[in-house]
């Protein structure tokens, strides 16, 4: 079963075609690495799959939903972690997790489990997000997304700003998600880091996706 099915999709940012006819298939249980130069369209592709952008032409199906028709029902089912933290700076870590958890209808236990899993230190819970380091923020955002138990993970440079233990947690997250029948799309420049945990590598250049030769299948 395909979780993501893109066929010749064009996405506009203003008048700029950030995706210029990209095609991609990702099956359930698969972790796929997206790589390519800056500005190639990786982030746009992830945001498209999250239902945040509208396909201008071509067909885009995510989790069996046609994004051209309905983008709303896809959103709560994906775990999107982008460049922005999507956290409120003035609220504490605990308040952010609680707010976003309740907004998505996630139980308190699930929220707590997710925070534990990201190994967010207890002492940080009452610290406003504005005083966190970039890595701590990233952990918090991933914890918020993980609490929803997404069927499709969309990770945009998830390792950026994380320390070694944080990176290990992200790697474990990717592996577990794929192993439990979900799908993962990771955009990253750190090939060495991500290659071992993904099944397949896709290159994105000039707004189109190119399936890489010699896909490395590690697990």
């Amino acid at each position, binding site marked *: 079963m395909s979780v993501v099915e893109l066929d010749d999709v064009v996405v506009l940012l203003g008048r700029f075609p950030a995706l210029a006819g990209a095609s991609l298939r990702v099956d359930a249980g698969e972790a796929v690495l997206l790589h390519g130069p800056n500005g190639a369209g990786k982030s746009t592709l992830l945001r498209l799959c999250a*239902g945040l952008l509208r396909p201008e032409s071509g067909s885009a199906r995510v989790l069996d939903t046609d994004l051209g028709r309905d983008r709303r029902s896809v959103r709560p089912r994906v775990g999107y972690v982008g460049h922005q933290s999507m956290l409120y700076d003035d*609220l504490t870590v605990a308040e952010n997790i609680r707010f976003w958890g309740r907004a998505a*209808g996630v139980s308190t236990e699930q929220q707590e489990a997710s925070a534990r899993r990201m190994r967010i230190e207890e002492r940080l819970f009452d610290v406003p997000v504005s005083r966190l380091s970039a890595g701590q923020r990233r952990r918090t955002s991933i914890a918020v997304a993980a609490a929803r138990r997404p069927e499709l993970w969309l990770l945009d440079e998830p390792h950026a700003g994380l320390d070694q233990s944080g990176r290990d947690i992200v790697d474990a997250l990717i592996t577990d998600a794929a192993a439990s029948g979900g799908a993962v799309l990771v955009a990253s420049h750190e090939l060495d880091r991500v290659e071992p945990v993904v099944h397949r590598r896709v290159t994105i250049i000039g707004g189109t996706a190119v399936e890489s030769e010699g896909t490395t299948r590690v697990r």
Partner: protein
Amino acid sequence: MLVAQKDLRIELRSKVALNQVVPFALLVLVLFGFALDADRASLTNFTPGLYWVAILLASVLAVHRSVGLEAGEGAREGLLLSGMRPESVYLGKTLALIAQILVVALMMLGGVVILYEAPVDDGLLLVAALFGAVLGVGAAGTLYGALLGGQRARETVLPILLLPVLSPVLIAATRAFGDAMGTVATDGWQWTGLLFGFGAIYLALGVVSHGVLMEEN
């Protein structure tokens, strides 16, 4: 309600409304005092008008702040991704905005009573009109604020969009206050009814259109 709670908690932490919007509104009042040459009689006469002009200007700031909360760090996208219904987001943000403007308006009321020695004849009417007007400002402000969302031109476009829309609020609130302060012979309750009507219309419009607006920014 969740969103309202969140907005108000942020406000309690950052105290932007308290530390920046209230002083701004009071400053406007003081400037009016200077401009009108400290003529007691005319100052008392103009109190309702000056008061509401100051409130509307301060409200534009409050709307900016309310929209700005979602604009920073991609929180707007977070709301979209959370699958929360756009209507409840709208109602929550409106409620929080109303609460903040209400606090500003009440403090300002103290300001005019002290600074302009505004006579208060009918306290009940005063408070009722205040609620009605703030309801309208909050409902319309959130609606037009959502419209501009993360636009870079927001700061310049919001006032020219919002202030004409709020002109009926200005008229009605000024009249109702005029009656309550005994400076104008008119039926203030009728005007208060108009204020609540305006608020109800905008609340309904906001609930209906917020889904479209949240998507399209």
